[in-house]
């Protein structure tokens, strides 16, 4: 007892350190799984955090509007022109849809089975970002109740963000493509025969390699998803910032700057 009294602070520190370390080890072993207690806590926190997150987004929008008025005016004009072009494209698409519908009816008539590709997206707000600046993983305020499942693809207007690592009722956790545990298969938009694999490079960017060491991939090439693996084909990933030949692995390696700004994500689209 005397020992405990004399070394009270050291004992308390050791005890607290041990408890915290047990938390860390247990969460590491469980990986991304959430038990009922964790799920309940996260659900409650998402409800509380979402207004803060939205408030910050609105404040950023307002302050950008005040300080970058000229830039926003110019961007507004460019967007008006883009909308006009897109409206023309919609008309063309509608005609193609009509043709597609006819082909589907024909497939039914001939008893031909085909796999329907999901075109349904759910919008969600980011409620909490990972403060570590390491993963750029985050929590969104939509989950199983909106048809979101694990490995659902997450995108925004700029391109590919990542996939759902955990889906519960009321919230989901997103693991971004720049996380090193998340790899994505790519193809070059200019030459879709050039394919490869990308994953996080530990510097909030992407790095990878092409499957063909002689592939003519160059700096500035736009990379899109190839459709192999978790992600469907055609989603923009990023632009090649550096190409080099690795003599050890005898593979052409690439460094890629993602299109998505992972430090400033607010709204996302999740494929159902």
């Amino acid at each position, binding site marked *: 007892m005397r020992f405990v009294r004399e070394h009270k602070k050291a004992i308390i520190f050791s005890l607290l350190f041990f408890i915290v370390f047990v938390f860390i080890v247990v969460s590491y072993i469980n990986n991304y799984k959430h038990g009922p207690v964790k799920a309940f806590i996260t659900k409650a926190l998402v409800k509380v955090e979402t207004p803060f997150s939205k408030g910050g987004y609105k404040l950023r929008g307002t302050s950008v509007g005040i300080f970058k008025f000229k830039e926003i005016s110019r961007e507004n004009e460019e967007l008006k022109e883009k909308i006009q072009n897109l409206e023309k494209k919609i008309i063309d698409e509608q005609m193609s849809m009509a043709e597609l519908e006819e082909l589907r009816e024909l497939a039914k008539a001939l008893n031909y089975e085909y796999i329907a590709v999901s075109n349904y997206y759910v919008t969600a707000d980011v409620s909490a970002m990972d403060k570590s600046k390491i993963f750029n993983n985050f929590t969104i305020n939509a989950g199983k109740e909106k048809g979101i499942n694990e490995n659902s693809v997450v995108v925004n207007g700029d391109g590919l963000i990542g996939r759902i690592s955990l889906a519960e009722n009321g919230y989901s956790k997103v693991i971004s493509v720049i996380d090193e545990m998340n790899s994505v298969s790519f193809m070059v938009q200019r030459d879709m025969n050039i394919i490869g694999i990308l994953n996080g490079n*530990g510097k909030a960017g992407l790095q990878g390699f092409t499957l063909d060491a002689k592939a003519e991939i160059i700096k500035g090439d736009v990379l899109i998803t190839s459709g192999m693996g978790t992600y469907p084909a055609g989603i923009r990933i990023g632009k090649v910032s550096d190409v080099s030949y690795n003599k050890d692995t005898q593979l052409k390696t690439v460094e890629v700057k993602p299109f998505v700004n992972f430090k400033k994500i607010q709204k996302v689209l999740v494929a159902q």
Partner: protein
Amino acid sequence: MKLRFSIPIFVIVFLMQATFLNTFSIFGVTPNLPAIFLISYEFRNKDNNGLILSLLLSLLLDINSGFLVGVTALAILVIHFFILGLKESFNVENVVVAVPIGVLATIIFDIVYFFTYKFFGVNYQIIYWVKIEIIQIIYNSLVFTLVYLAFGKLGKSKKDRYRAWGKY
């Protein structure tokens, strides 16, 4: 500082860290508010309320937005005992002394955080982390100075015998 003031302050700070604070990021870096508030609280108060609140809230923060639960709490513990040791040797009521010590404590927080994740196998490049850390140090210094001075106004120091009011 009384609990009825410290609880809402710490809760708001931890909520802001994962959400609202991203609005004020510089090159993607946000100030480490939980550590800054804990250190400022420890400088101005002798009780352990700041530590207890920070530990509980950091566990919630990690559950919600982290990968490993408990890393923030571990870093909080380390800087608490670091501050406890330095408080005895330095006059932390002087802002010129308090700010460098406070910023050093936030650096220790980031080091513990980074190396804990490294220990558990996360491949995060150290050179990139150092670049981020330089911006973090500058940002933390500015925010810490403001928070420290604000805490000085909020909770009067018990060490000041010459204040007219005894209780606060």
